[in-house]
C-alpha cells in the first residue's frame, strides 16, 4: 500500500481504482497513471520521454 496525492488529499492507493497506459511512437515514449474514486478522476500523472532531436544544418559558403 502507498499514499497517493489526489484532489481529495493523500489517499491509500488500495482505496482507488488504478489505470495505466502508454504511447510509443517516433517522437515520444509516454506513460501515464490515473487513480479513480467512485467514477471521479482524482490523480493523473504523465511521463514523456522525448525521442526526436532538433537539428540545425550549418553550412559555410564556398568562394568558387
Amino acid at each position, binding site marked *: 500500500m502507498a499514499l497517493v*496525492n*489526489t*484532489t481529495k488529499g493523500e489517499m491509500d492507493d488500495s482505496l482507488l481504482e488504478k489505470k495505466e497506459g502508454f*504511447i510509443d*511512437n517516433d*517522437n*515520444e515514449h*509516454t506513460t*501515464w*497513471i*490515473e487513480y479513480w474514486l467512485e467514477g471521479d*478522476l*482524482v*490523480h*493523473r*500523472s*504523465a*511521463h*514523456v*520521454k*522525448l*525521442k*526526436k*532531436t*532538433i*537539428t*540545425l*544544418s*550549418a*553550412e*559555410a559558403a564556398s568562394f568558387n
Partner: protein
Amino acid sequence: MANTQAMTTSFLGELLTATHNFTTGTGDTFKAALYLASATVAASTTVYSATGEVSGSGYTAGGVAVTNGTSPLSSNTSATAGVGYWTPSASITYTTVTLATAFDAVLIYNSTQSDKAVSVHTFGPQTVTAGTFTLTMPSNATSTALLRLATT
C-alpha cells in the same frame, strides 16, 4: 492552429550574435514553459509569452528552470563535418500540478536574455490531475541530443 516542434528562427540568428550562453554554472538561465494544445508556439516564436500557456494549481507562469549540468559539446564526424549539441542534464519536472486543459508542447527559452525563445518540443496531448508531469530528455550524444547544430 497547433504547436510545431522547431528550433526557433530567431534563435538561429541569435547564435551568430552570441546572445545565448549555455555554459554550465556561468551561463544563462533557461526555463521550460508548457503550452496548451490550442496554442501556436513554433519556429516563428521569438520570446516566451503567457498567451496559450497552461494554467492551473501548482503551475507558475513561465514554467520551471532547466537543469544545465553539461555545457554544449562538439565533435568532428569527418574532415569536413561535425556536430555541436546540448541537452538539459535532468528531466524537466512539474510537481503536484493540476492542468485540466490538454497541453502538448514545451517552450525552452532564455530567461536571462529577455526570455528569448530557443526551441519548441511537442508530444501527445496530456492533462495532469493532482500529479506530476515529467519530460525526460534524450541522451546527450552526437546523434540524439535535444539540440544539434550539424554540418554535413
